[in-house]
C-alpha cells in the first residue's frame, strides 16, 4: 500500500470539514462570550480612561470608545464587522489593546506565540519520549513490584497542580539551592542564551508534570496490546527483546497521540499558568493579564490564536494518523 493510497478522499474531506466547523464555532464563541458577560465591555476601560484624564466627561468618553470599537451598533452589525475583521482580514484585526493603546491586540499575541510554542514543543517532545520508554517498560513488568509502586506515584504527580510543583521547585532550586534563578527577564528580542536560560526551569517543571500522563496512557495501551493475538504470535517467534519493544512502541504511538490531543486543552491551561507564574512573555501571561485587566481586544485575540493553534495541531494529528495506522482512512 503506497502512502498516498492511505489518504482516501473521503477521509481528507471529512477532516477538513470538521476543522472548518470547529473554526467557525471558535470564532462565534469568541464573539459571544464577552458579550454575554454582565455590563458593557467598555465600562471598565472608560472608567480607567477617566481616572487618567479627569477633564473628559464620562458620557463623552463612553461615546467615543463605543464608536471606536463599534459597541454602539446593533449586535448583528457588530457581528458582521467582527467577521469581516477576523475571518476576512489578514492578519485578523481585533482592534487595539485597551491597555497598550495604539498596539493592535493581534500583534501583542503574535509576539508571545513563539515562546508558548517553544515551551510546549520542547517539553512535550521530552515528556513523550520519556513516557514511551517508561510506559512500555512498566507494561512489560505489570503486576511486578516496580510497576505496582510506580502507578500510584505517577497518579500522584499527575494529580498535583502544576503551579504547586512550580512553587516547590522554585523554593528548592532557586531559593534554597540557588541553582537556577526563578525568574529570568527576557522578551521578544532577547538573545537565545538568555531565553534558554529563562526557559530551563519552566521546561523542567512542565516535563515533570506531564511525563506521568504520557506514561500512564502508553502503559495501558501496551498492556492491551500484550493481551492481543499478534503479540502472542510475536512472542512465539522468539524475537529479541529490543525488537519486541520497538514493535510495542510502534503500536502505542497511535493511542498516545490520540489521547494527547484529547487532553491538549488541559495541557495548554497548565502551560499558561506556568508562563504567568514565571512571567514568561508567552500567550498565557498575555491572556491572564488581559483577563484580569478586562482588556477585551487582547482577550479575544488571545483566545483566537490559542484556538487556531489547537485546531491546526488537531488537523495535523488527523493527517498523521494514516501514516501510523493504515486502517484509519477506511474507518
Amino acid at each position, binding site marked *: 500500500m503506497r502512502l498516498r493510497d492511505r489518504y482516501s478522499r473521503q477521509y481528507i474531506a471529512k477532516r477538513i470539514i470538521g476543522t472548518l*466547523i470547529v473554526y467557525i464555532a471558535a470564532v462565534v464563541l469568541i464573539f459571544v462570550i464577552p458579550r454575554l458577560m454582565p455590563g458593557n465591555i467598555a465600562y471598565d476601560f472608560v472608567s480607567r480612561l477617566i481616572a487618567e484624564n479627569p477633564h473628559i466627561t464620562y458620557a463623552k468618553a463612553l461615546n467615543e470608545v463605543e464608536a471606536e470599537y463599534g459597541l454602539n451598533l446593533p449586535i448583528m452589525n457588530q457581528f458582521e464587522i467582527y467577521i469581516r475583521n477576523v475571518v476576512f482580514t489578514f492578519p485578523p484585526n481585533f482592534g487595539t489593546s485597551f491597555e497598550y493603546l495604539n498596539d493592535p491586540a493581534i500583534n501583542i499575541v503574535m509576539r508571545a506565540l513563539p515562546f508558548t510554542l517553544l515551551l510546549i514543543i520542547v517539553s512535550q517532545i521530552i515528556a513523550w519520549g520519556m513516557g514511551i520508554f517508561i510506559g512500555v517498560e512498566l507494561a512489560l513488568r505489570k503486576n511486578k513490584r516496580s510497576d505496582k509502586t510506580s502507578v500510584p506515584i505517577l497518579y500522584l504527580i499527575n*494529580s*498535583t497542580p502544576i503551579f504547586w510543583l512550580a512553587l516547590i521547585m522554585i523554593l528548592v532550586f532557586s*531559593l534554597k539551592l540557588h541553582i537556577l534563578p526563578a525568574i529570568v527577564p527576557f522578551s521578544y528580542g532577547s538573545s537565545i542564551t538568555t531565553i534558554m536560560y529563562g526557559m530551563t526551569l519552566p521546561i523542567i517543571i512542565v516535563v515533570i508534570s506531564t511525563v506521568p500522563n504520557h506514561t500512564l496512557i502508553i502503559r495501558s495501551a501496551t498492556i492491551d496490546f500484550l493481551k492481543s493475538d499478534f503479540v502472542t504470535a510475536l512472542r512465539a517467534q522468539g524475537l529479541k527483546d529490543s525488537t519486541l519493544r520497538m514493535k510495542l512502541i510502534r503500536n502505542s504511538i497511535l493511542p498516545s497521540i490520540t489521547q494527547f490531543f484529547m487532553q491538549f486543552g*488541559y495541557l495548554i*491551561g497548565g502551560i499558561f499558568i506556568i508562563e504567568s507564574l514565571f512571567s514568561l512573555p508567552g500567550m498565557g501571561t498575555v491572556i491572564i493579564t488581559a483577563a*484580569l485587566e*478586562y482588556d477585551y481586544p487582547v482577550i479575544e485575540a488571545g483566545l483566537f490564536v490559542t484556538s487556531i493553534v489547537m485546531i491546526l495541531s488537531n488537523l495535523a494529528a488527523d493527517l498523521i494518523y494514516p501514516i501510523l495506522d493504515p486502517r484509519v482512512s477506511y474507518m
Partner: protein
Amino acid sequence: MKKEDSMMSLLLHDMFFKIGFAIVGFFVAMAIISFFYLPYNPIASTGPLWSPPSFSHPFGTTASGQDLFSQWMYGSQPTLFVAFFSAFVSALFGIPIGLLAGYFKRADEPLMRFADIFLILPILPLLIVIATFVRPTNVSASIIIGVLSWPWMARTVRSSALSIKQSPYIEVAIMSGTPHLHIMKDIFVHILPLIISISIFSATGGILFLAYMDYLGVGPITSYAWGTTLFFAQTSNALYVGAWWWIVPFGISIGILAMGFSLIGYSVENAYRGVVA
C-alpha cells in the same frame, strides 16, 4: 448477579482500591468533622503573624495570623463538593450524548463533531476569561467545569456503547424489535462500571480545575478551597518570605486527594475489564 459479585471481590482484593478508598474516606471524614468542629475560625486572625508550625498552630499561620490547620480542614469541603458536583454535571451531559452517538449511527457524526468543538477549544483560558467577569460560586464553578469537560465522558461512553452494540445479544435484540430505549438501558447497565470509573476520573479533573481557578484568583474565592489558600500565599509572597508551611500541605493535599480518586477509578476500570474481557 454473579458479574457484580466477582467485580466486588476483585475490588476488595485490590491494593490500589483500598489505598484510594482510604484517602478519599479520610478527606470526606475531615470535611464532615469540619462542619461541626474547627480548632480556630479559619478566616479570622487568631494567632501570631507568619508563625511556622507550632503546638497551638500545627500547620502554622498566614500573614494575617489565620490558622492554616483550620483552613486546611475547612478547605476540604469546597474541594470535595466541586469534585463530586462537577463530575455529576459532566456525567449528566456526557452519558446521554455518548449513548446516543454510540447507538444511533446517524447521530454519531454530528454529536461527536459537537464534542470535538469542546475538546479543541482552549478550555482553561476560556474558563479564566468567563470567571473574571462572573465571580463563580461553588455550584456555578462546578457547572462550568462539568459543561466544559463532558466530551471525555461522551467519547468513552460512545466507544464502549459502540462495541457492545456489535455484540450478538444486542444485535438480536435490535433485530427482534426491542424498543430502543430498552436496549440503551441495557447497554447503560452493562457499561455502568466503566461510567463510574470515568466519573471518578473526572472528579480528579474537577479538583485540578478548581485549583487552577482558585490559584489564579478567579475561583469561588470566599469558600477557601485549598487552591484559594495557595492564591493568598502567592499574593502575600509567602514563597520569598520562606513560609513553606503556607504552601506545602495544600498542594500535597490536592495531589493526594486527586490521586485517591484516580486510584479508585483505575481499579474499578481494571475490575470491569478483568470480569468482562
